[in-house]
């Protein structure tokens, strides 16, 4: 799957007009200079040859060289872990919050709480992350002054203090929690209609006990799938949120890569993101298979 995606990415960038040699050339470069750059970057070789080179380098952890002649791995070594940290924190928070909210509302089906949380969840998911970020900035920085508006980096390129993580993480968590709460709530509602859960309810067990011990285990596959699809949204959203908060992640690297039409660099980012998403999807599949007791 990942290989097909990478091939598609590579093809898309190559087939459309313009190339990195033009994009990174300075004003006043002659055509000969551009041609020299093109040769230096290996852009004058046939496409399949470059693609084969790049693909064979992948398993060894070599992502090729960027349009500016640096190793892509070096360019991504510092920022990518930062983005992963941000996305992981957001992922854990999302999972915890959406499970809590989903179970809390499922225990009171049809109540006011249930309806309010349901509407809030679908609304939260519809709002782009950067709009949520603005809201957080206004409330947490401007009105209350609790948090700094900008992430400062320490000497090692990582965020200086952990409080810097709060706002970017929250901006990612709010929409995704909305999405996953809806899924958890729906899965629990489906489970509530199954015979064994109805039996447990008729036995007079408390709603919370019914949900925790009887409904939730059956809902796990659907919830795992939902959370897995959130990974892509979290990583994508992280790129945007980072630019707003000046968080030292791949967002800033990507912004530069877009300006320079830097195929290898963007492909590298797509590979890293795709690999991370694949891993989570795989984990979700494993969980599903274990719960269903059959390998799917």
């Amino acid at each position, binding site marked *: 799957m990942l290989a097909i995606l990478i091939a598609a990415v590579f093809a898309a960038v190559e087939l459309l007009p*313009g190339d990195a040699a033009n994009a990174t050339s300075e004003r006043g470069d002659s055509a000969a200079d551009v041609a020299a750059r093109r040769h230096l970057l290996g852009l004058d070789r046939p496409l399949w040859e470059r693609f084969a080179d790049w693909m064979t380098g992948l398993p060894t952890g070599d992502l090729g060289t960027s349009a500016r002649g640096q190793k892509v791995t070096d360019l991504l070594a510092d920022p990518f872990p930062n983005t992963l940290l941000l996305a992981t924190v957001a992922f854990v928070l999302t999972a915890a919050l959406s499970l809590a909210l989903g179970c809390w509302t499922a225990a009171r089906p049809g109540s006011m709480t249930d309806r309010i949380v349901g509407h809030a969840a679908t609304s939260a998911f519809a709002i782009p992350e950067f709009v949520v970020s603005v809201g957080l900035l*206004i409330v947490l920085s*401007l009105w209350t002054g609790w948090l700094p508006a900008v992430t400062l980096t320490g000497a090692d390129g990582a965020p200086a203090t952990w409080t810097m993580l709060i706002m970017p993480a929250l901006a990612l968590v709010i929409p995704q929690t909305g999405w996953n709460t809806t899924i958890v709530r729906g899965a629990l509602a489906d489970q509530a209609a199954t015979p064994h859960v109805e039996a447990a309810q008729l036995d007079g067990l408390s709603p919370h006990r019914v949900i925790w011990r009887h409904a939730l285990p059956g809902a796990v596959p659907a919830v795992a799938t939902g959370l897995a699809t959130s990974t892509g949204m979290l990583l994508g959203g992280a790129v945007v949120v980072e630019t707003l908060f000046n968080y030292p992640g791949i967002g800033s690297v990507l912004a530069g890569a877009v300006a320079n039409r830097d195929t290898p660099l963007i492909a590298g980012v797509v590979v890293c*993101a795709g690999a991370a998403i694949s891993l989570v999807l795989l984990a979700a599949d494993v969980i599903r298979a274990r719960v269903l007791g059959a390998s799917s």
Partner: protein
Amino acid sequence: MSVATTGRRPATADGRGRVLPRVTPAILLVLLALTGPYLAAHPLDKPVTAPFAPPGDGAPLGGDQLGRDVLSRLLHGGTALIGSALLVAFVVTLLAALIGCFAVLHPVVGRAVERTADVFILLPPVLGIMLIALAWPGGGRWAVISAATVLGIPYAVRVVAGAAAPLATAGYVEAALARGESVTYTATRELLPNLRGTVLALFGLRFVEAVYVISMAGFLQIGPQPPAADWALMIRENAPGILLNPWAVVAPSLTIALLAISVNLAATSLAPRSARKAVTTP
């Protein structure tokens, strides 16, 4: 849910009276954004105040980073965003409805659709947009529109195919195929009319998704370029002055949020109960 094999499903009696109040805000907001440019007091690119001036005389929402009137730019900034989002939602829904119906009747197409959707799940939409917009310099808004369309189709096809699958085994579809009707006829005349609710809800939710993706691209400065007025771009440009004139950032944020929420509400209220679970945005 099993569909009775009696043919056409009756329209869901989902309280038609409750739909109207839920659809109205979205329609009003879209109309306001489309007529906004005619209501603006100041031209787009003429500084009328000091940079990041607080709200005052002549500029109810203050000035932006160049001292241009925030309210006028706000009224101008929604047209292109909503227009592009409508276009994307329309094209995606149309193609997805057709491909989805064929995928159900044609196992080969169905498998191809599943595979493509699987691959696309690995690509966050933001990265996809970046790739397409970047590989097409000078594409501007059209690059973003085509990127959003291409990236939206696989998932939408899945939704339609999921809703059409139970219908494909219904008696009337099998009867049509047995009569010797072509796959095209069966898909467009027998399947599609029974997916009205799903397709309508899908259109609404694709619109929300398109607003999300296009505004995201605008924020990343792909697509609309300064000095164009665009809500997402306004947020990006004026973020540095959020302490001086918060309205320059808050107003466009509010409009995007309101647009997304109201259209989302309208779409979910239009969906028939049976389709409500199937139609969810990724």
